[in-house]
């Protein structure tokens, strides 16, 4: 052992180890070194065991929660609910459009008739005032019906977003199912959620014991 190396070890090691390095008792040094390594390993295994326990608990909780309704059905139901919203909103929008299209010819006719009355009316004719009111009402109704038609664009705009959410659910459905199956396998059962609930503390402890905890 050269002097440079000896100096580096001395500075980086605890006093107990430095004392042993300086002593001439070789077996005592090896024994102390083994004890330190074992101590570190035990601490590492405890941490690893705690991590494994936390992961197992999290997966078991996830499996139990998802299994209550069966994740496959939950995802399918969610997508169906969104489809229902799309269809119901489309029906509502079409009903509004039906109304606007049905009323539009009446508004046009009112405008046309009011204009005809105004064209033929002579000064002092009492029908003039009524025709003017009818004309204003007809024009306002026509504009309002046009606005109502435009307002139904919400169904298209919201529908496109709903479709995106549906596509997202479909994309996570398969990985989620796989995760639930994994929780089942970890618990030693084939049925995903049920298996997770059936896992015992003894199984967990046995698993952890393999890690030295």
């Amino acid at each position, binding site marked *: 052992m050269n002097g440079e190396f000896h100096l580096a070890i001395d500075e980086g090691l605890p006093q107990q180890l430095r004392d042993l390095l300086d002593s001439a008792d070789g077996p005592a040094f090896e024994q102390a070194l083994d004890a330190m390594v074992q101590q570190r390993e035990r601490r590492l295994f405890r941490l690893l065991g705690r991590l494994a326990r936390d992961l197992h608990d999290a997966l078991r909780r996830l499996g139990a929660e998802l299994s209550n309704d069966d994740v496959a059905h939950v995802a399918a139901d969610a997508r169906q609910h969104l489809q229902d919203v799309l269809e119901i909103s*489309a029906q509502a*929008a*079409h009903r509004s*459009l039906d109304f*606007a*299209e049905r009323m539009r010819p009446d508004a046009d006719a009112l405008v046309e008739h009011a204009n005809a009355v105004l064209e033929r009316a002579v000064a002092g004719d009492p029908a003039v005032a009524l025709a003017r009111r009818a004309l204003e009402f007809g024009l306002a109704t026509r504009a309002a019906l*046009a606005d109502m*038609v*435009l307002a*139904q*664009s*919400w*169904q*298209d*705009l919201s*529908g*496109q977003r709903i479709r995106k959410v549906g596509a997202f659910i479909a994309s996570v459905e398969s990985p989620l199912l796989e995760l639930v199956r994994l929780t089942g396998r970890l618990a030693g059962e084939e049925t995903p959620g049920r298996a997770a609930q059936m896992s015992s503390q003894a199984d967990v402890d046995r698993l952890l014991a393999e890690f030295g905890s």
Partner: protein
Amino acid sequence: MKLRDDVVDKNMRILVVDDFSTMRRIVRNLLVDLGFSSTLIQEADDGNTALSLLHSRPFDLVITDWNMPAMSGIELLRSIREGEKTRSLPVLMVTAENNRAQIIAAAEAGVNGFVVKPFSTATLEDKISRIFERLALSESGA
């Protein structure tokens, strides 16, 4: 910009393409409000159906949504530009997103106009006017 009778033929054949039936109906209503003939307006619910219609009968204008399943609006536009009979057909693209990348892609694919939903009758009138004014100018220039 208002529709000019000498530039825009109110009896033109228009194809409205959108996967949402409500939107197709809204566009149809707006077009009728602008004086176009309802009987000359056809509808398609996606790009593939639109292409079939375009190959089976003549049209003067296509108004298509961008975001559609099966064949999107931009794919439809590219197919129209590739078709021998359809390559000069005016196309007005409709989209729910004011997305710069989409606008550039549509321009590069040869779109004639671009309108963001929701839009008013006046906006639609302006877009159609500009398309046909430009076409009239380029024809007279040629």
